[in-house]
Structure formats: structure tokens, C-alpha cells
């Protein structure tokens, strides 16, 4: 039998299927990556430089100057570009300081949950068998618990504060890390370089940290962006419901809760912090989408 082997095995159909989508996607996503990074970087600078950027003290009350509308209203002024709240505190300054809360909680929660989830996922994926069964069981249990409800109940027990919210969400949001780390490690377990390391008698921590972890890091970073966004939204939700960050802290969720009573007549009190949340979370999601396509070029655009 003559098996004709061509060195140029570029199957025509494959070329047809992928050329265009890839081109289109890489430009599109590099753009979303760039936009996402740009927004996050600017907000990061805002958070760091809050004391210098904020025009007023975010906690300073001025009962004579309550509910001043933003500058685009007829009665607005540039002294308070985004107006003041019901206690006369400068809205822009509160918004700027609120960036710190959102970013801090988002990052720390992703760090804690990433640590928990990755450890569980890598162990389950690498060892399989009973370890995997236990982790999968914990995962199923965790997924069955309604996050908002449990977080609310626990926060009301312990008492809501930035620390409680961070810890609670960190302990609750590890599921996606575990799922991704587990399946990625399972695929790696049989990779030749991992087996080579095993054959050489490398110690287990070395294999896990030096051979496995760097190779699943890409996928984990994508999950991390998702979880930062998720944590920021959940913090806002808990604060909105009064069980998260407590007054007078300028959490964006809390600002929306405090503005709720006035929203029918002065919608900007909830529109402004809402938009801030939206832009931040959107930027993180864009970054995540961009990273996902970088780490899996030509992969599924899911």
C-alpha cells in the first residue's frame, strides 16, 4: 500500500475553517484587552492617588449643602462636580475613595479564593481517585449553597465590615478555580515532562509547583479576572443590602443603597455609583476575555 505522506500536511479544510475567525478574533480581542487594561490602570491610579485626587474629604458632612446635583444640572456647580449626598458629602470624593474598596476587595478575594480553589483543584487533578472524590464532593456542596444568601446570613452573624466581606467571599468563591485547576491538571498529569519529572524522582512539591502550576497559570489568571469582577459585584450587593461594608465607608454599593430613597427625584444618586461599578467590572471582563483568547489562540470563543 502506498501511503503518500506529504510534509506539507496543511489539510485544506482546516485552513478554510479557521483562517478568518482567528484573524478577526485576535484583532478584536487585543483591542478589548487594551481597553480593559487601560481602564483598570487608570482606576488603579485613581485608587492609589485618592487623597491627592479627591477634591474634598469623603467623610466631611455639610448639612447646609445637601443633595447638590452634579455639574450638568442647572443648579449644579463645579465645587462639587458630581454633587453631594444626603449628608452633604462630596460625591466625587466618595466615588474616588470607593475605588479603593472595590479594587481591594476584588483583588484580595480573588487571592484567597484562588489559593483555596487552586490547591484543591491541583490536588484533585493530580492524584485523582479518593482525593478527587472528596474535592468533587466539596465542590458540589459548595455549588449548592446560595452564595448571596449564605454570605448575607454569615455577615449578619459576625457583623458586616470590609474584613468580614472579604473573608466570607474569599471562602465562598473558590469553586471556579477548583474546577479549572482540576481539569487543567488532569490534562497535564499525563504530559511527558510531568512524567519525566516523576521518573527522575523529583519531590512532589517540586512537580506541582514547578511543572504543573506554571502550565495551568494561564487558565487560572482568566478565572481570577472573572472572580475579581464577581467579588466586586457581590461586595456591592452585600453593601447595598446593608450587610457588607458599613457606613460611613464610601462603598459604591452602599452609596446606591443610601441614594435609593432619593432616586425617583434625583436619579443621579444611584446612576453615578452604578456607572462606576459598571465601568470597572466591564473593564475587568474585557481584560479577562482578551486574556482568554491570548492563552487559547484559535480555541473556542466561548
Amino acid at each position, binding site marked *: 500500500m502506498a501511503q503518500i505522506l506529504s510534509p506539507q500536511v496543511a489539510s485544506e479544510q482546516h485552513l478554510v*475553517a479557521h483562517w*478568518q*475567525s482567528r484573524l*478577526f478574533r485576535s484583532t478584536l480581542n487585543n483591542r*478589548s484587552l487594551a481597553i480593559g487594561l487601560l481602564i483598570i490602570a487608570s482606576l488603579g491610579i485613581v485608587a492609589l492617588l485618592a487623597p491627592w485626587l479627591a477634591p474634598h474629604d469623603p467623610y466631611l458632612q455639610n448639612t447646609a449643602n445637601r443633595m447638590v446635583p452634579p455639574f450638568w444640572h442647572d443648579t449644579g456647580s463645579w465645587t462639587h462636580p458630581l454633587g453631594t449626598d444626603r449628608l452633604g458629602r462630596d460625591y466625587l470624593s466618595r466615588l474616588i475613595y470607593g475605588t479603593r474598596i472595590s479594587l481591594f476587595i476584588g483583588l484580595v478575594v480573588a487571592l484567597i479564593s484562588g489559593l483555596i480553589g487552586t490547591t484543591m483543584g491541583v490536588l484533585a487533578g493530580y492524584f485523582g481517585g479518593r482525593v478527587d472524590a472528596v474535592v468533587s*464532593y466539596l465542590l*458540589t*456542596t459548595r*455549588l*449548592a*449553597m*446560595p*452564595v*448571596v*444568601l*449564605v454570605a*448575607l*446570613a*454569615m455577615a*449578619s*452573624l459576625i457583623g458586616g465590615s470590609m474584613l468580614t466581606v472579604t473573608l466570607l467571599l474569599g471562602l465562598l468563591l473558590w469553586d471556579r478555580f477548583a474546577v479549572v485547576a482540576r481539569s487543567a491538571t488532569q490534562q497535564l498529569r499525563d504530559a511527558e515532562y510531568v512524567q519525566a519529572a516523576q521518573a527522575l524522582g523529583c519531590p512532589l512539591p517540586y512537580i506541582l509547583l514547578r511543572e504543573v502550576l506554571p502550565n495551568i497559570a494561564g487558565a487560572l489568571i482568566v478565572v481570577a479576572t472573572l472572580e475579581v*469582577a464577581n467579588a466586586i*459585584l457581590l461586595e*456591592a*450587593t452585600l453593601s*447595598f*443590602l*446593608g*450587610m457588607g461594608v458599613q457606613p460611613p465607608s464610601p462603598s459604591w*454599593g452602599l452609596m*446606591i443603597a443610601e441614594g*435609593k430613597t432619593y*432616586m*425617583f427625584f434625583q*436619579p443621579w444618586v*444611584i*446612576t453615578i455609583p*452604578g456607572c462606576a*461599578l*459598571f*465601568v470597572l*467590572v*466591564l473593564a475587568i*471582563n*474585557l481584560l479577562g*476575555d482578551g486574556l482568554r483568547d491570548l492563552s487559547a489562540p484559535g480555541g*473556542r*470563543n*466561548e
Partner: protein
Amino acid sequence: MWAFVLKRTLIALSVALTISVLCFSLLQLSGDLALSIGGPEATAEQVEQIRVEYGLDRPVVQQFTTWLWGAVQLDFGRSYYYQSEVMDLVVERLPVTMTLGILALAIALGVSIPLGVVAALKRGSWIDRAAMTIAVTGQAMPNFWFGLTLIIVFAVKLQWFPAAGSDSWQGFVLPAIALGYYATPAMMRLTRSGMLEVLEADYIRTARAKGLRTGTVIFKHALRNAVIPVVALAAVELGFMLGGSVVIETVFSLRGLGQLAWNAISRNDYPVVQAIVLIIALFYIVLTLLADILNAVLDPRLRAR
């Protein structure tokens, strides 16, 4: 097939048991129950009487088995605040939450599947880009804020729908949108990527080689296979929606399970909180189990397992 269902049911039952342990621990963590029940004016004697009456003087394990035995019979004890059976409160509120959840799911499916299919068919077109934009922006909007914005626009400014209340079907429209849109992006992306993958499958080429009409190829051969993972996701999302109802029901003042939960949490009414967490977890477990079974029905290859 039956072995698979049995295995999944056993796992579901043990997960439910674990969650009930966690719920019970929640009750124990909430401090001295007898003090909470008695209220601030109760004397030491009254508190002691309550302790005996509610069985709080017994060992924790015995209290747990008693509670669990009750929970199995759908008896979750009495509410501290409402002074009535927890189960009665739940039964009264459940229809509102279920209506809301199912409506929200219907909206999410009704938007995401057609949009996902069109986006996949017209990949790279303006429809595709619009759909992806909706997906990305939708996921970035906090749902309580979206709910409030809906109230401002459609209830206050346009006065199309009531801002609150569950007396008529109109009252459910805005909350269902606010709850449903959050699940839309994920389901739309999954439909789109599923369709894209399936449309490149060999059996689609076979179907076209048979001369089948485009509609038959897309709906009979492609969509049927692309929609299988979406069904599983939809069940999971419904579970999340029931959990997320606490936010939306608070925003829209709907007398559902979520609002009951929030009231109970803010009043330290832990038997109610405990019961609702367990019930929502059970719903989630049952829904994922149903999704697995439904998947097996839709995908003949899974039936053999």
C-alpha cells in the same frame, strides 16, 4: 441509565445532608437562642423556660437529629419573629419566587438562544457584534442597580409597569427582566459557541450533502446538538436565580422567599434563614439532577453510561 440516576441521587442526598449540617451550625453560631427567642424583656426564668420548651438544653447532636427529623418531614420549627410555623411562611411565599424564577429563566432563554443562534450563523456581522456587546455589558451590570434603573425608567418615568408588588402579572415583568438578564450572557455565549462548533461538525456536512433545506440543517441537525449544554446551564442558572431572588425581591418589594430570607436575616430569625438556605440548596440539587437526566435524554450517547 438507571445506575447513573441512582448514583446521582445518592450524591445529591449526601450533599443535602452536608448542607443541613451547615445550616444547623449556622443556627448554633447565632448565639444563645433562648435569649433571642425571649427577646430583651425576658427574665432569666422565662429564658430558662424557653430553653427547656424548645429543647435547647439538650446535647447539640440530639438537637440536630431532632431538627433533621423534622426537616425531613418538612417541619422546620417555629419562626422567632413571626411566631408561626416556618413551613407555613415558606409555603405562602414560595409561589411568588417560583413564578419570578421561571419567568426570568423564560426571558433569559427566549433572548439568549435566538440571539446566540443568529450570532453564530452571521458570525462577524453587526448582529454578532451587537450580541457580544450585550453579553459583555450585561455581565458587568450589578443586578440590584439594573433593577433600580428599570424602576426609574419603566415604572416612574414611563409608568408602564408597577414599581413594586406581586398582586398582578405586571408586577413580575420588571423583576423577571432584572433577574433574567444576568443569566443571558452566559447562555448566549454557550449557544453561540455551541452552534459554531456544531456547524463545523461532519454530520452537518452530511446533512447538507443530503440536500436538506437550510432550515432543517440548522434547526433539526445543528441546534438540537448545540442546545444540550445550554439546557444544563439553564437548570443551574435557575438555581442561582432562586438564590439571587433575595436581592431582586428586596429591590421590588415582592413578598417571596428572598424577601422573607432578608427580613429573617435582619431580625436574627435563624430558623427561617436556615430553612430557606436548605430549601434553595435542595432546589439547586434537584435542578442539577434534572439537568443531568435531561441531558441524557437529549444526548443518546450519554444514556449508555
